[in-house]
């Protein structure tokens, strides 16, 4: 591998353009992932605003163009909002951005296990991103919704099937490479003295998420490969006329696409744990149960997928069985929430921006989790399935919990990554606006689904005054949220010129804070190989330990 020398006082980001493009360094690859993810988050957010624009008043307001109608544009925007938010933001911001940057630092490794494979994964993800940008051209609009249910997705009116399939495939190649890399790194590259019970919970979360990706993504690949062969090569997998079954598509899709919500939320839980323990100045309560709960969620997550198909025509006994398994997820999740509360109990909490975003994220997760219980019960779900209630529910439990966690994590590690301190005032303002906006938006979305029976996905609705009002309230919430996100984006850019940060501004014993310079140097650690004292623990916030830091 070619080696370019820079002065020993260098920073991880102080490299030439060529070194950035050909980089195999986990920090730079992580940053490339992160920037790409953030750009697509903004794009998908704008898509969400377009949906609000369309729904604020009855009727179709989006313009038709290039032979396609306004409703076609709406379907494209809806597909794009879902697919990009889930795959490009919710999964990649963790597995690509945060995990790449932080995991080697947290386990005391110089890099990931396969640095070139890491770079390969990014560039194939980049290729998938270019394919996504191709869909912006009207003839390439994908209008089959992000799930791409067969046989609808084979219809030419639903958009170019091949483009959808190949976007998913490229994404899957990248993600399989990434998860093999992360798992091998965590299993084999931990520094001496860092056992499985001394790993950051964020690392445990990434381990569990990578295992889910490794076993789940191939099912998604299978579902779209068969879609491709059905449409273009004449196979019959989803064709009931000759022995196929469209339900097979749903089973394969949800076998991955349910567990993937834990790929998105487990790292968010990891961030909550890091931030709570650090800002409460206490070791995380029940560390072992926290770690086991992560793996329990990952395991049970593979046994619940049919709850997405309660109205798809599956046998009653499956519906009952999967209703129970779904409710069972609440047990390990409850363990985590109670442990966070117990960690905060009698602590002197620092209410700074990362902590506020973590509180907000847990609150949103709690509301989303509790509204998930009626969804898991078949008899109730039959009534509220495909209504706006479910849309509000998953925006709480997934969209908001995860975005709050990501923002919390960005603020939390901002000093370590950039070497500068973010603006606390602007961060807190952004938090409060986001909390208020998100609750206005998604509470009334749930309300409309439950109380008024407004179906999801529809661009248009009858001009009932109450419905129009409810839609307008949601739009106000969405606008407040947009301002909040904009404020945070401004904060992150502006603070690049902010005050210099210390090596360990949070006084944390976790390796990424205590053993590196700020910003991190190209070789990660001040001393390598990393050595930790016997009584070291990433959450060692007990009296006397801080002599070590």
């Amino acid at each position, binding site marked *: 591998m070619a080696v370019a020398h820079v002065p020993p006082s260098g920073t991880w980001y102080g490299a030439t353009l060529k070194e950035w493009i050909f980089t195999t360094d986990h920090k730079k690859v992580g940053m490339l992932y992160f920037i790409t993810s953030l750009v697509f988050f903004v794009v998908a957010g704008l898509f969400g605003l377009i949906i609000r624009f369309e729904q604020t008043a009855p009727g179709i307001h989006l313009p038709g163009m290039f032979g396609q109608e306004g409703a076609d544009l709406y379907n494209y925007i809806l597909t794009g909002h879902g697919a990009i938010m889930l795959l490009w933001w919710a999964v990649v911001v963790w597995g690509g951005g945060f995990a790449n940057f932080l995991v080697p630092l947290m386990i005391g490794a110089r890099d990931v296990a396969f640095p070139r494979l890491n770079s390969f994964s990014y560039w194939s993800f980049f290729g998938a991103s270019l394919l996504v940008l191709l869909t912006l051209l009207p003839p390439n609009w994908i209008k089959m919704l992000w799930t791409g249910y067969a046989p609808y997705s084979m219809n030419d009116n639903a958009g170019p099937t091949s483009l959808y399939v190949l976007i998913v495939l490229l994404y899957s190649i990248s993600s399989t490479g990434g998860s093999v890399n992360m798992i091998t790194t965590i299993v084999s590259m931990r520094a001496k003295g860092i056992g499985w019970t001394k790993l950051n919970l964020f690392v445990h979360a990434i381990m569990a998420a990578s295992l889910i990706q490794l076993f789940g993504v191939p099912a998604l690949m299978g579902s779209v490969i*068969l879609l491709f062969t059905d449409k273009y090569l004449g196979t019959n997998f989803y064709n009931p006329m000759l022995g196929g079954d469209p339900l097979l598509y749903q089973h394969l899709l949800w076998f991955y696409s349910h567990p993937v919500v834990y790929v998105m939320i487990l790292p968010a839980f990891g961030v909550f744990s890091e931030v709570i323990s650090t800002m409460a100045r206490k070791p995380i309560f029940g560390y072992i149960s926290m770690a086991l709960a992560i793996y329990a969620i990952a395991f049970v997550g593979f046994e619940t997928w049919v709850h997405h198909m309660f109205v798809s025509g599956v046998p009653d006994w499956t519906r009952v069985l999967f209703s129970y398994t779904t409710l069972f997820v609440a047990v390990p999740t409850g363990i985590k929430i109670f442990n966070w509360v117990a960690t905060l109990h009698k602590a002197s909490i620092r209410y700074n921006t990362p902590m506020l975003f973590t509180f907000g994220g847990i609150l949103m997760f709690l509301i989303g989790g509790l509204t998930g219980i009626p969804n898991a019960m078949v008899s109730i779900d039959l009534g509220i399935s495909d209504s706006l209630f479910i849309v509000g529910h998953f925006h709480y439990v997934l969209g908001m919990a995860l975005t709050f966690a990501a923002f919390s994590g960005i603020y939390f590690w901002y000093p370590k990554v950039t070497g500068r301190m973010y603006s606390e005032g602007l961060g807190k303002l952004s938090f409060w606006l986001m909390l208020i906006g998100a609750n206005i938006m998604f509470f009334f979305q749930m309300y409309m689904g439950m109380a008024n029976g407004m179906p999801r996905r529809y661009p248009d609705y009858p001009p009932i005054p109450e419905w129009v009002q409810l839609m307008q309230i949601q739009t106000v919430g969405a606008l407040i949220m947009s301002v909040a996100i904009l404020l945070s984006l401004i904060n992150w850019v502006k603070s690049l010129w902010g005050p210099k940060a210390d090596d360990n501004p949070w006084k944390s014993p976790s390796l990424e804070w205590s053993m590196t310079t700020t910003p991190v140097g190209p070789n990660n650690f001040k001393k390598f190989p990393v050595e930790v004292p016997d009584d070291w623990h990433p959450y060692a916030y007990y009296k006397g330990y801080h002599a070590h830091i």
Partner: protein
Amino acid sequence: MAHEGSHAVHHEVSPWALPVGLSPFFLSLAAIAYFTWKMAMVAVVTGGIGLVLFILGIAGWANEYFSKGHDEGLGFQGIVWFVFAEVVIFGTVFAGFWMARVNHADVWVREWIPPGGMNLALVALLTLILWTSSFTIWKAEHSIEHNDLGGYRLWLIATIILGTVFLVLHAWEWLHLWAKGFTISSNMYGTGFYTLTGIHASHVLVGIGMQFVLLINSGKALGKKTPARAASYYWHFVDLAWLLVAGTAYIVGSYGKF
């Protein structure tokens, strides 16, 4: 990759992951251009770019690893995890095949099995060839463990030849069945049969590709034995998968009309 210490501060780079990483993008463009945009020329050009990027990238990547890399022994673990993912990909096609076999058992046996049934003697021959190759690659691995480069090359070449013979015979079998009117779109048996065996054959091809890369770089293999172990493990997986693929596609598929 240098893991030794903090004495040299440098930015790790490699020019080869980028072309290999971008090749799926160009190959995808080719597929989309061919099937959806109906622009055959664009498909040929982008497909060509994708293939060139892939082959050059892999060649450069392997050369860089064998010339300058460090063997840290992690590649074996990496391929073990990767094989788990492969098992699930196979599982999706098996799921489709078995669902149809169970749900449509009557019409399957009555109408879908090609007249005369399947050529089970050929399956036995294919199995023999593939399992012999499992032995030869084990011999190759064994040779390199004992620093016997000559034996390593010889057994690698034997494995490549056996794999290629398997593919050729398999292709001949496909053409033969296709000519009899048993095609990929006839019914779910045809669909399942060609997809299962096709996906398996594509894995055989990938395995041969790995062995080919090993053979080209065999001169520098003495200090770097993990790739040989990893390729061998992958090949054993492909051979073991054949048991399930052949058992399903041929025996379970044509059971009732042997």
